[in-house]
Each structure stands twice: as structure tokens, then as C-alpha cells.
């Protein structure tokens, strides 16, 4: 190591304490200062992070899933017991990303991103429309953010949920009564494999031996007046006989729902450009205007290129969907 000898005797000015100090002393003071400040910064960052976390906790997303018709596609072999004992339903949900096109606005999609970016960079464009010079402004399209996720729902073919069980008997006895009641085919039941009874919550899960082919829920429902088509699965009553009394317990399907690949994303438009400035052209035919805009922006001398699609909105706003 080089001997720092003469250097060490040199004196430095510490602006914070307005003193003359040696290099080593200055270095030590700076190190201490930075270390202390960094600790404080870290603490404040942690506080803010916790605050933000609290603030965004439990924001809820509620989605109504659009009704979709299904059709038989193929017959496969179940690979696991779980596949055979559950009806599984899986699907992907995503928020539509769209732009609300206002009157006097248009969207134009170019084949090439560079062309779109160039048009935006140029900003103002002048188009001759019916001998009138119209100034059109090109901007990027502001798009919303959305969520996307995958849902997997498993409805058991052999288990059902039972609730509102009266506390009329001690745990063991009630479990037996439940098993007996659900074994009665006259009520739509069948051979029971086991009963998991949780007295404090007045609920139980009844597992049947492999059902013949239809869901035990269906069997149970057969004996009850019920309109099958298009009704939200209502919890139905089931008679539970204890000694001389009949109680009504509620039965419902045993289901498990899982969420996967949850993601928030924002849409960004690279090839589609927003054109504004056509508010005064409301009397024009939309199609004719679209053609004129298309032709103008196809021309390289206007800064354009190959155009994929043009949509103008003159007298009515409309929603324009953006896809991948």
C-alpha cells in the first residue's frame, strides 16, 4: 500500500460542522453521516410501503361472467381419482381494454409501428376534405388497465355441504343421525362413506360412495320441487329426522375454487393512433370520411404507410376494443 504520509497531514473543510479536519476524519464523518441518513431513509420507506399496502388492501373486483353455451367435444380418460370425483370447470377471465371514441375522433391502425409513431411525432396533419382544409391532430391512444386471471372450480360428485344443523344432540349422536338421514333413498340419499360434522358451526360435509353417474346433489334435488334450468343454485332443504321431530337442514354443493395467474396489466397501443379535430364534419358520411383519412395516411409523402383499419365516429360515440 502506498504510504499516505504527507497526504494525511493535508486539511479538509467539513461544510457540515464548519471545521478543518484531516482526510481520515472527514471520511469517517461522511461515512457516519451517510450510514445514519440511510437508516432513516430505510425506515421512512418501510413506513410508506406499509401505508400503501394498507391503502390498497381489499380492493375488490367483482365480475359477472357472461353466459356461454357449451358443447360436447371429446371423451378422455380421467388420470387421477380427483378428476373422476369432481366436475371441473376452468376458464380465463380478462378485462376488455377499450377506448371510448368521441364524436369527431377516429382511430387508425397502421401495419407498421414506426409509421404510427411517426404520425404521432408529426402531430398536426392537414387533410383536404370536400375542399376544406381540416387540421387533424394525431395522438397516442390512452388505454385503461385491466386484470386477467384463470379460474378453476371443482364441484364434488360425491360430497355435499350440510348447514343449519340443529344442536339438538351431542356430537357423536348427531353424526350418526346425519348418516342415517342421508342414506335414505326415498329422500334422494344413498350409501354414505363418511360424515364430517362440525358442531360449533352447525355444519357438516357428507361424502357418499361413488355416485351412479349423476351428482348426489341431483339425486337429492329430484325429490324436491325444483326448476332446474337457469336458476342460481339455491340451497335446498333436506329433512333430518331425530326421534319424533323433523328438522330442515340446508344442502348445497361442495365446491373448491382456485385462482391462478392473476395479473394486472395496462394496454399500450403501438400501431393504433388517435386522430382528433373532426368535430365540424358531423354532416359527413362516416364511410366517406374513413376512406379519405385512409387514403391520406397511406401516402408516404404524408408521413404514412400501409393502413390496416380506420374507424371514425362522427355523430355517435362508440366503444373500440383493443386486442392482442
Amino acid at each position, binding site marked *: 500500500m502506498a504510504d499516505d504520509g504527507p497526504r494525511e497531514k493535508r486539511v479538509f473543510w467539513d461544510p457540515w460542522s464548519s471545521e478543518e479536519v484531516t482526510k481520515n476524519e472527514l471520511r469517517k464523518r461522511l461515512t457516519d453521516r451517510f450510514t445514519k441518513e440511510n437508516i432513516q431513509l430505510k425506515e421512512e420507506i418501510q413506513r410508506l410501503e406499509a401505508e400503501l399496502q394498507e391503502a390498497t388492501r381489499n*380492493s375488490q373486483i367483482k*365480475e359477472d361472467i*357472461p*353466459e356461454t353455451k357449451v*358443447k360436447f367435444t371429446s371423451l378422455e380418460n380421467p388420470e387421477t381419482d380427483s378428476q373422476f370425483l369432481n366436475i371441473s370447470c376452468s376458464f380465463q*377471465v380478462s378485462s376488455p381494454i377499450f377506448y371510448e371514441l368521441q364524436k369527431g375522433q377516429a382511430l387508425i391502425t397502421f401495419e407498421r409501428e414506426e409509421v404510427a409513431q411517426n404520425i404521432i411525432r408529426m402531430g398536426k396533419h392537414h387533410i383536404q376534405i370536400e375542399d376544406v382544409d381540416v387540421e387533424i391532430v394525431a395522438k397516442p391512444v390512452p388505454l385503461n388497465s385491466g386484470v386477467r386471471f384463470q379460474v378453476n372450480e371443482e364441484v364434488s360428485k360425491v360430497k355435499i355441504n350440510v348447514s343449519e344443523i340443529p344442536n339438538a344432540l351431542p356430537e357423536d349422536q348427531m353424526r350418526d343421525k346425519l348418516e342415517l338421514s342421508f342414506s335414505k333413498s326415498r329422500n334422494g340419499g344413498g350409501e354414505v362413506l363418511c360424515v364430517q360434522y362440525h358442531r360449533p358451526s352447525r355444519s357438516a360435509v357428507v361424502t357418499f360412495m361413488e355416485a351412479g353417474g349423476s351428482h348426489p346433489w341431483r339425486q337429492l334435488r329430484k325429490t324436491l320441487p325444483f326448476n*332446474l334450468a337457469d336458476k342460481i343454485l339455491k340451497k335446498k332443504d333436506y329433512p333430518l329426522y331425530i326421534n319424533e321431530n323433523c328438522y330442515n337442514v340446508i344442502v348445497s354443493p361442495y365446491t373448491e375454487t382456485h*385462482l391462478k395467474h392473476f395479473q394486472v396489466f395496462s394496454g399500450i397501443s403501438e400501431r393504433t393512433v388517435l386522430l382528433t379535430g373532426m368535430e365540424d364534419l358531423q354532416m359527413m358520411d362516416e364511410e366517406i370520411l374513413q376512406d379519405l383519412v385512409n387514403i391520406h395516411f397511406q401516402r408516404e409523402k404524408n408521413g404514412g404507410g400501409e393502413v390496416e*383499419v380506420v374507424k371514425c365516429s362522427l355523430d355517435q360515440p362508440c*366503444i373500440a376494443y383493443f386486442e392482442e
Partner: protein
Amino acid sequence: MSVNDAALCALQEEQTRLRRRLQELQQQRRELRDIPPDQVPFSVPAVPLVFRGHTQQGKEVPTCLLSKLRICYPLPGGSALVTFDDPKVAERVLQQKEHKIDIDECRLRVQVEALELPMVTTIQVSTQISRWSVLVSGFPAGLRLSEEELLDKLEIFFGKIRNGGGEVETRELLLQGAVVLGFTKDTVAQHLCQVGQFTVPLGRQSFPLRVSPYLSGEIQKAEIMFRPVPQSVLVLNIPDVLDGPELQDILEIHFQKPSRGGGEVESLRVVPPGQRGLAVFTATSG
């Protein structure tokens, strides 16, 4: 530069980074006060999208889009699934709970039932910024790695303390080329978000990737409805007297007879006794 100078430099760099992060958070807090509750307070991965001409009149906000619907319905041995061309035929067939199928001198008794499939109608998801997970994004286009390879490389890099990471507990490739990494310690996730940018080796090259907070979702409630499949009918409790192909033929002939209420059969699949089947249903386009 001597060791002490290097240490001082490092402290200065750290402070610059910390101040930047602090500013970011202060900005987010300001923005949070202004934005409506259903929007996200930090920047999220951007997905490039394009307008292709698909529009809708009016100002009604569109509902969410559903895709890749797949329903799997187990079929026990000794059952069959008959799909008719005309749903009215299925309705007619279902009017009789029991069908008697003639074969030579004897009769087969089978049960016939409507098919109902569970479908989710409403879903409620609660979201929260995850304390243990981060979102890794900014992957270059045309990256030639399989899902498994990519996840492995990310776990290797971010699993190392010397890279600023820590032990990885979970990893998931999201639908839009972003990856979620979950760590055993929440301090790791926080630190990685503070740093924000990392150069990660993915194969022969290294790429700058972005690490940001991950908004995770949890299902609060899912309502389901059982909906009938109008064209299909379940045939159950088929006695074990015939071989597969023969049984198939006999059933098809029976269910095509108008005299038995039948009609044009689009498909008929049999699950022989002793076997198990899984009937797969997907969304129709029309």
C-alpha cells in the same frame, strides 16, 4: 481507490437509490389520494394491443371477456353420452326416464338423464399488494426459453443473496410473459422492488429486467349455476352384456329411431363397464 473510499462510494450510491425509492413512494401516495378505488396505484406491465375494427355502439361499459372454457364431467363405467343435432330431440328423449333397447330376443333397460354442468356466474376477487412476491417483467421478444428453463434461470438469479434476492418459495409464469416470484422472506421482496432494475443472465446473454410490486388476487366468492346442455343426454346403468363396438351400434340405432323419440345423432360415446371416462365440454362459437 482505497477500501474506505469504496465503502463511502457505496453508501452514497445506496442513498441515491433510497432517495429515489422514497420519491417514488411519496408520488404513489399522492396519486392514491386522487385515483378512484378500483385502479392500480403503481405502474404495471404494459401489453401491446391493437385496434382491429371491433366496435360496439353506445356507451355501455363492456363486461369481462371469457375464454378457454373447459368443463370436464366424469362418466362412470356402463354409461354413454349422446349428443343430438336437434335439442328438441334431446328433450323428447328425456321425457322417458327409462329406455328399453331391443337386441335380438332380449331388452336392455337403461336410464336416461339430462346433463347439467356447473358454471361460475359471478366472481369476487380481493386484491392486495403482495408482501412476499414480486413481478419480473421486461423480457425481450423472441426469447428462446421454455417456461421451465426461464423460471429456473430466474430462480437461480433471484435466489442469491449476493444478487439482492433470497430463497424463492414460489414461481409462476403469468399469461403475458411476466413472472411472479414469491420469497420466503418479505424483506427480499421489498428490497428487490427498491432496486427495481436487474441485469439477469438468460442463457448466453444477459438482459435488463424490471422488478415491481405484485398485486395478488384471492377469490372471496364464486357463485355457480347448474346449466343444462340442451343437445346432450346421459345414458346410465347400461348392463354389461355387450362389447364396446356392438354396444355403440345398438345404442346409436336406438336413439336414431323416431319411433323411440330419437333423431339424428351427432355423436355417441360409450364408457364400457369397469372403465372411467371424462366428458370434455368447451364453448361453442355461435
